Structure formats: C-alpha cells, structure tokens
C-alpha cells in the first residue's frame, strides 16, 4: 500500500495552513475511544480479581476441585461438575451447529437461486436477533416437557444442547456465509474452467480458501455458547452433578452465577466471582486461539 501514498492528495497535507486539520481530530477521537474500550476490559478483569481475592487468599484454589459438593452455605465449593456442564453443553452444541451452519451457508452461496439465498440470509439474521430468554421460555414450555416424555426429568444436558444449537446456528451460518463470499471469484472461475463439478469445487477450492474464516467462526460460536446464561438456566435443570448421560440435568457456570449471585454473601459471593474469572480465562484462551489460527492459516495474510 505504500506505493499509493504520494498519489493520494490528502487535504490535510495540501492545505495545512488554511484548513482545520480534521484528520488530527479524528485520530485523537479514535485513540481516546480505543483507550476507553481497553480500559473497560482491564477494569472488568481487575474488578473480577479483586472480588475473587478474599476467597483465593483464605482458601486457595483447592476447594473448587477437592470439596465433596457445591453447597456454599455449608462451606463446600466444588465447581468441577459445573465446569463439565459448561464444557459438555458448549461442545455438544458446537459439534451439532457447525456442520449445520456450514451446510446452510453452502446452500445460500452456491445452490440457492439468488433471490431465495437473500431471503434465507435475512431469515438467519432474524434468528440471530431473537433474545435468548425467548428461546429459554420456549425450551421450558415446549422442549422440556417433550424430552420428559422420552426420558424424565426432561430438563437436561440434551435440552441445553438443542437450545444452544438453535442459538449459535445463525452465528456460524452467517460467518461461514461471509467467508465463502470472500473466496476470490478467480478461484471459482478457474475451477469451473478446469471442469470441476460443483461439489468438487466446494471440497477442493472453497473449503481450503475459506478455512481460517470457518475456524474463527467456530471459535466465535464457542464463545457465545459458553457465555449463554438465561436460556440454559431455564432448560438445563441446574442440578450440580457431573452428568452421566445426555438426559441428566446439568448446571453451567454462567447459570450458577445468575442463580446464586443475587442471594450470595461473603465467601459464597467471592467464590462466584472466582467462577466468573475462570470463564474469563476460557474466553481469553479462545480469543488467543482465534488470533493464532487467523494469523497462521489465512491465505490473504500470506499473499500480501
């Protein structure tokens, strides 16, 4: 891009003396905004750490893994069942939603007529905009009684996975759609001129070219699934137990915070902040993973 620099006639360079320097204002407004945004994230982390410290200093991290149960009012703080609940619900929904989302994006980009593809895209966007509590309410009054008939009690890991799948499907579908849309037109023309079938083109040209976008999409949806609270709280049963089957109830870390925070005092409250800190750590790891994948495997980065 540097070769363009002397060809651009920036008004701020040409008329510095006569005109007000808007570029300067813009740059500083953006810098201040960025600083505020960064500060907010840092303050949240510092706040979480400060609120967790009373517990961590007195009891350390041991009770979260070695106590027999999670009964904070009796001084027992084992949160591993909830860690498992969070991981299983998240992984389950991502494993189901990813292929569905990618297939839906393929249909949208390559198989649907243009008008239908656009309509379909709008519908998926609409699905992404529905508030999570609506999904949760639907799950509670429709899905849970349905599963209950199959295998009581109904409120279960399965219900959570289904609800989460429906919720994260739009995200993965839209991100996949966008990354397919960014596959250079020449690649597709080249594949067609070589006589590749549509499916052959998708498998051997589109997927490798869109790989990094798809990975990032998956990681974004993992983040969304981990953070989801209300819908999961309403359908998962919220019993603190490591599930042994898909019909067992689970409680996720986020649901635990939402259920107990308003009623927690002292060590209990502090322990909930520790679980918040643990969630934050997972999200940070995911963000780092997304960054690494984007940097190392993006063909766009390599070429430029």
């Amino acid at each position, binding site marked *: 891009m540097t070769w363009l620099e002397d060809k651009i006639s920036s008004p701020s360079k040409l008329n510095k003396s006569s005109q007000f320097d808007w570029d300067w204002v813009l740059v500083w407004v*953006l810098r201040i*905004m*960025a600083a*505020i*945004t960064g500060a*907010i994230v840092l303050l949240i982390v510092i706040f979480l750490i400060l609120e967790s410290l009373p517990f961590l200093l007195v009891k350390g991290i041991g009770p979260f893994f070695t106590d027999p*149960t*999670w*009964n*904070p*009012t*009796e001084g*027992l703080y084992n949160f591993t069942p909830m860690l498992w609940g969070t991981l299983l619900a998240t992984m389950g929904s991502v494993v189901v939603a990813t292929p569905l989302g990618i297939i839906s994006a393929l249909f949208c980009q390559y198989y649907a007529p243009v008008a239908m593809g656009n309509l379909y895209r709008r519908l998926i966007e609409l699905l992404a905009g529905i508030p999570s509590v609506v999904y949760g309410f639907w799950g*509670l*009054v429709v899905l*849970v*009684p349905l599963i*209950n008939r199959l295998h*009581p*009690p*109904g*409120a279960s890991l399965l219900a959570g996975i289904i609800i989460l799948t429906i919720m994260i499907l739009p995200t993965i579908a839209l991100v996949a759609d966008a990354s397919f849309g960014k596959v250079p037109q020449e690649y597709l023309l080249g594949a067609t001129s070589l006589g590749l079938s549509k499916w052959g083109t998708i498998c051997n040209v589109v997927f490798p070219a869109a790989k*990094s*976008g798809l990975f*990032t999409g998956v990681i974004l949806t993992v983040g969304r699934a981990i953070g989801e609270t209300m819908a999961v*709280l*309403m359908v998962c*049963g*919220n*019993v*603190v137990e490591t599930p042994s089957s898909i019909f067992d*109830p689970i*409680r996720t870390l986020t649901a635990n915070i*939402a*259920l*107990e925070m*308003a*009623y*927690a*005092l002292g060590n*209990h409250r502090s322990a909930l902040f520790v679980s918040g800190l643990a969630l934050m750590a997972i999200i940070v790891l995911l963000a780092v993973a997304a960054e690494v994948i*984007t940097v190392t495997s*993006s063909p766009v980065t390599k070429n430029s």
Partner: protein
Amino acid sequence: MIINSNNLTKLFITSTMIGLQSCGQSGQNTPTIQKLTITGSSTVAPLVGEIAKRFEAENSEVRIDVQTGGSSRGIADVESAVADIGMVSRALKEEEKGKLYGFVIAKDGIGIIVHSSNPVKEINDEQVVAIYQGEIDNWKEVGGKDAPITVVNKAEGRSTLELFLKYFQLKNSQIKAKVVIGDNQQGTKTVAGNENAIGYVSVGAAEYEIDQGVPIKLLPVGGVEATSETVRDGSFPLSRPLTVITKNQPEGLTEEFIQFAQSEEVHDLVRGQNLIPFQTK
C-alpha cells in the same frame, strides 16, 4: 477477518457513546423531592411496590425506588447503606437482630405443588423428607401411579429454600434434586410442564397461577390445607413473616413509611397479594 475487527471497533465506539450519554442524563433531581430506596426479597417486593405507590400518592414530594434481588441483597444493601430499607422474606436470624431493626409487614406460606393430574391427595412430612432425599423415588410408594418422581428444588441462598429446609430439618446437600429453579414462576412452569414433578413455591404465587389456569395443585402440609385462608389464620405450619429492615432506628421518612406499611390502611393491598396482614400489637 480484517473487516470483522473493524465492525467490532465500531460496535465498541457506539456502545461507549451510548454509555456516556446515559451518564449525562442522570442526577436531575429537584432538591424538594425526597427519595427512599428499598431493595431485597422478590417475594416482598410486589407488596412493598404497591404500598410505595399508595404512599407516593399521599405524599407527592416522595419518590420510592423498589428493587428486587433477594433477601440477602436486602440485608447487604442496608448494611452498606445503599438502600434505606431492606426487604427479607423471613424472620431475622439471632445474629442479625443485634445489627438490624426488623418490622414484620405480612405473612406468607410455602406450599408443596404437584401437577394437577397427579392422583396423590396428601403426603405427610416424613414422605416429603424421604422424597427430597431420594429414598422414595416413585409416586406409587405414596399412593400415586407408577412413575418416577421429579424433585424440584430451589437454588442455594433463596429464603424459600432456607425455610423449607428448616421446617423439614434437612440440609441442602442431602437433597437429591432433578431440577433446580430460581424464582417462583420458573417453579410453577416446571411443575406444570412435568406430570411427575414435585416442588414448593409461595402459596400466594401458586394460587395466582392456579387462577390463571396453570395445571398445578397445592398439597396440604402437616394435614393443613395450603390456602391463603389457613396462612391468614396462622394454622398453616410452613409459613414465614415478610419483614422490612433498617440499619438504625428508623426516623423521618423511613419511619413514616414503615408505620404506613404496618398500618391498617394497606391491609387491602396485603390481602390483594394473597398474604396475611400482620398486627404489631
């Protein structure tokens, strides 16, 4: 992905701006208006909200802000002086009586609920204990049909749970629950959606939902029917006082409001919430 991060930045800028805007709009109070902040139990809040509305109507210079968040929040907010008055849905514990002033404004009962299609008419206290501990796990053992029991429990820290545990002399770690719920409404929805569930919610809340046609029914506790009538006359054993608390001996506006909330002027409001009015003398 470059486009994505740009979008994110835009989003952050917009949300920061919205945040700044809303900061600028607060704090426009005229000095003549007196404010009272009340926080705490979601069981007490609807009643206090009604009382506050009537109090505001009679005293135009007063604004009362009622927020929910549970009894524990009520206590924490009063201790840290965030709120002037706290609401708790139980009697004050011994260790709290030294630090706080409590004033009972009404009484409420906790009823055991099952699905309305459940043939079981009555279960005694021992059976409730056995069901909640997982020793009885099929309805046929207490005279119902052959179906597994879905035990619905409340989340840790809720005053309904505390009162339930105290009455049945259980510890929460002994309870083998299949579903854990947050508020009363989630409880009634869960039981209504599961023919084999058993749960417990505020009698007032349950009666309201039954009137709305939700398919649940209340079981007697200790042989006493769970109705607002038996809670009102004090014969229903599983009941609790709804209390408002202050940090110091109330004075001024706080004292006026508490006296108003305990007076006969609001008894119709208390009854309107399916609660029993409480006489101090």
